[in-house]
């Protein structure tokens, strides 16, 4: 009888294991309100993004107070849409995964407040995740068969960070980060300085295609610093000095050459230091992610350099580079499998080290 009982439990557990896991992801760390439903950590049933680009464009950058005001207006609408589009009833959701760090406090708290309310009302686990780790998981979402450890590079308007991920897919160590501007921030600031528009990344990328990237030999900041940190503020200043010294660089016909050279310098440092980190830690895989992972030169350089170094490189499709909640749900799935749940008392943090 006892054995029968145990067998019974086991069979229930087995059934549980075979059941599909649905994770609702919510992401409001910066200016995009995002919600997504992901099945088994790999099938995106819905991914809704409400972008505020249009609103922030006229300021040449994100205004935190405005971002927060927009999030609270649309948060429930975006979550509802993600659930409706997924075709999954709210009662089937296994857990809610939400970004609670790092990011703008006024933005984070809108998503986390909503996530807590759903978990409390539905009595399901809350999983509060790190935004940067979620970015890295946008690659795991696209390639669920990635095994073993890797080096993860997150490059966006707010971050330029290198992570070492060991085998278990969950414990992640920061091995380097920017000491000043994030790379995307430098792109935005240069675009604003040259009156090219906002966001700067895609504009500079496009202009660079018709430019000569060897036109100016910009410095490669911190390329031989001996650690894995980055610096992009000096590169930005260097461009500004050059244009002040040589006014004709600001002429319309020279802009593509100017920004192409700038972009090349930034990409060179990122690619070089990431590959060095990969070698140092004995890894054979690099996972690139974040908004700047959409940059065509960065994608090309990583593909080229990794192939000649026998390193596999993973970069998510363009749609998954920008902030989205599918990556948050994907990371949430792996935390769910490990039972890494958060308390409903969880707070929001502007930085990861808090």
């Amino acid at each position, binding site marked *: 009888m006892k054995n029968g009982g145990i067998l019974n439990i086991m069979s229930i557990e087995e059934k549980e294991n075979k059941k599909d896991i649905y994770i609702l992801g919510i992401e409001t760390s910066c200016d995009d309100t995002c919600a997504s439903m992901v099945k088994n950590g790999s099938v995106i049933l819905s991914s809704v993004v409400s972008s505020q680009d249009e609103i922030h464009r006229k300021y040449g950058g994100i205004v935190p107070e405005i971002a927060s005001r927009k999030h609270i207006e649309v948060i429930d609408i975006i979550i509802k849409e993600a659930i409706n589009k997924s075709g999954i009833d709210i009662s089937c959701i296994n857990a809610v995964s939400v970004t609670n760090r790092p990011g703008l406090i006024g933005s984070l708290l809108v998503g986390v407040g909503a996530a807590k309310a759903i978990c409390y009302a539905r009595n399901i686990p809350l999983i509060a995740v790190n935004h940067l780790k979620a970015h890295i998981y946008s690659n795991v979402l696209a390639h669920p068969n990635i095994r073993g450890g890797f080096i993860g590079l997150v490059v966006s308007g707010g971050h330029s960070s290198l992570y070492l991920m060991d085998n278990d897919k969950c414990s992640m160590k920061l091995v380097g980060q920017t000491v000043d501007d994030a790379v995307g921030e430098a792109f935005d600031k240069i675009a604003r300085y040259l009156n090219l528009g906002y966001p700067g990344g895609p504009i500079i990328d496009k202009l660079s295609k018709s430019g000569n990237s060897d036109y100016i030999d910009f410095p490669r900041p911190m390329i031989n610093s001996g650690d894995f940190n980055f610096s992009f503020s000096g590169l930005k200043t260097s461009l500004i000095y050059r244009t002040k010294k040589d006014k004709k660089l600001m002429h319309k016909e020279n802009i593509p050459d100017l920004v192409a050279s700038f972009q090349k310098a930034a990409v060179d440092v990122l690619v070089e230091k990431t590959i060095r980190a990969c070698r140092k830690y004995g890894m054979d895989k690099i996972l690139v992610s974040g908004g700047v992972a959409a940059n065509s030169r960065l994608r090309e350089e990583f593909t080229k350099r990794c192939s000649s170094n026998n390193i596999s490189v993973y970069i998510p499709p363009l749609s998954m580079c920008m902030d989205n909640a599918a990556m948050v749900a994907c990371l949430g799935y792996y935390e769910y499998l490990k039972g890494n749940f958060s308390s409903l*008392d969880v707070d929001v943090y502007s930085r990861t080290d808090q």
Partner: protein
Amino acid sequence: MMNILGIDSSSRNLSAAVSRDDKLLSEVINHESSKHMVNIIKFTDKALRRAGLSIKDVDVFGVNLGPGDFTGTRIGASVIKTLSWVEKKCAYGINSLDVHAVMCAFKNKNTIAKNLLNGRPVTIAPCLDVKRSEVYFSFYGISEDENDVCHKSEKKIIASMIIGAKKYNIKRIGDYHLANKDELMEKFNIFFENEVLKIQSKEIAHVNPAVIVCGSSYASHRSTMLDLIRSSSSFILDKRLLYSQARYVNLCSYFNALEKVELKNLAPVYVRDFVPFGN
């Protein structure tokens, strides 16, 4: 009968309350500054448990939408709008001045009853500190329900209260106002000319009202508020009532639900548009 769950996170004090109709069943409140994000679900759960209810039993949700502390108000709005959506129940967002007015009316029932019995009208004037040396205020009258012929069309009644055997309505007179603290007395004088509260556009006149002033302005602009109170013998200052509480959010929400007030997308109330990089 309806069960109401309300949250007030618009000030440094966080509170969650559960009521059945206009009767309070439980309230959890933190009088110290607290991390609202950390405590909001805990307080909500505690209030429901103390009332012997679960979230599934809630018929109406309510939240103080400010003006108030930006961070706190957003946390409350996000939690309540999501709870009401998941539970498929209605949610009302209440202006912070309305919550203060109801709190002031209930906390001063005796004063109000005494004045009304003597035939003297009562005006409530909550004054909220909204930063940048500005005060956000409005006026509320208290009138017998049976004499209130126009209340359905006017839609300015925010809650009702029983004094003795009679039902009274708490009604906003005129709009919400914003004034620099240095101009507050001047603005008040426009409304209280010759001891008569006049709101010109509405042709309402309260002759020689007793005016009860409350709200957070007293905490931030003490001397301004004391000067204002001293300027007229009609003014009474209730120094206790600085920050609003969830139980009064519930009273307003109950009234909204009874009157089937139109539901709106819950978003915090801001007293001014946000202008990046200054003016």
